[in-house]
């Protein structure tokens, strides 16, 4: 097997931090692979795994739609490529999203995660916060959650595993090879969740 090819969708948002956390994960796990920023369908076609970072989900969705990246991502996920959606990335992976303030959203979604999302579930920019959370089910009992205008998962289908809750709200889920979190693991020094995702990619390949 040649090394893993992991991409960070680089349309907008928290790209550099995810590149760094993923590179460190490969190194710590001793797995051979490369991590690149990706923006075009051609770059996405070659990937073994993809992180859709935090940012603004309508922006990332709309701009990925215009150059055909969204279609390519859909195709890859349908073929089993592991994908990790963070904050805006979680929203993009979902089947349905509404906004706490604006209401029902008409935005491009990838339509894979069987969940209904509430955008800005914890409030506006200044309501952003940090808190200790837990993801026992995947062997991460303690994690520092950074929530920036974070979404939450209001409803989840039967195939969706709930990995974590905070104040009664679901903030991390897994469905097959898809992981989604409301919080930003790339903004902490703890790379255990990125390592978990890298291992998921390795198992698939």
């Amino acid at each position: 097997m040649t090394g893993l090819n992991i991409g960070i969708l680089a349309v907008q948002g928290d790209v550099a931090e995810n590149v760094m956390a993923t590179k460190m994960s490969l190194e710590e796990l001793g797995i051979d692979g490369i991590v690149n920023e990706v923006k075009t369908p051609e770059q996405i076609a070659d990937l073994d795994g993809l992180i859709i970072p935090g940012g603004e989900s309508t922006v990332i969705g709309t701009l990925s739609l215009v150059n055909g990246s969204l279609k390519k991502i859909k195709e890859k996920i349908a073929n089993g490529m592991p994908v990790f959606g963070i904050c805006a990335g979680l929203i993009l992976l979902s089947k349905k999203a509404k906004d706490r303030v604006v209401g029902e959203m008409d935005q491009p979604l990838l339509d894979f995660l069987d969940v209904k999302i509430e955008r800005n579930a914890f409030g506006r920019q200044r309501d952003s916060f940090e808190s200790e959370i837990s993801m026992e089910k995947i062997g991460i009992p303690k994690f520092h959650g950074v929530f920036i205008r974070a979404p939450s998962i209001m409803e989840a289908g039967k195939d969706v595993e709930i990995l974590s809750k905070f104040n009664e709200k679901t903030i991390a889920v897994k469905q097959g090879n898809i992981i989604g979190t409301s919080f930003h693991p790339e903004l902490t020094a703890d790379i255990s969740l990125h390592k978990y995702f890298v291992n998921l990619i390795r198992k698939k390949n």
Partner: protein
Amino acid sequence: MQAANVDMIDESEVLTPADETHHIWKWGFTTPFVNGARNLGEALRRIEEGAAMIRTKGEPGTGNVAEAVIHIKNVNSELRRIKSIYEAGDDQDLISVARELKVSYSIVGEAASLGRLPVVNFAAGGISTPADAAYLMTLGCDGIFVGSGIFKSEDAKERAQAIVLATTFWEDPDKVKEAQKMIDERQSMLGLDTKNLELRMQERGSTA
């Protein structure tokens, strides 16, 4: 503004400053601030005051992007200089730079080791076309702020979409060309002579 629940505050030089000697001490707020800068010293002073984002000042409202280009090039060349000092391990020289820029040694050290500003850096001031935006992205900006270039134009909607596309796909000349075709060049601001303006906004607060 924080009490009004806004998501971000631009401590803008376009407004007449109430305090001509100090900027806002931004650490006292939870709402993130963005500040303008014409050079590395200004940028680092604003970051030390708590700015979460930096943008070039450019010369707003002129449709002339040349000043923004000068500002980003200033910042880039000063960053290259301190990075090389850092790589040479010359702490004494870095301390001289800190004194010259009127900032702490630690923030100079941080920028020098990163080889960039420790916060995101946008281009702003005079941008009015997709080509302006794409060009500034090639100079290493993290993103683009556009105000009057869009809002005072007759084709605001198309222009906004075109500038966003050119900013996102700036590495692809075909996409930038497509974006440029989405706007009517005759509607673009003419590009005022920024050297002979009655009031140069960029000079406000630049020595503080």
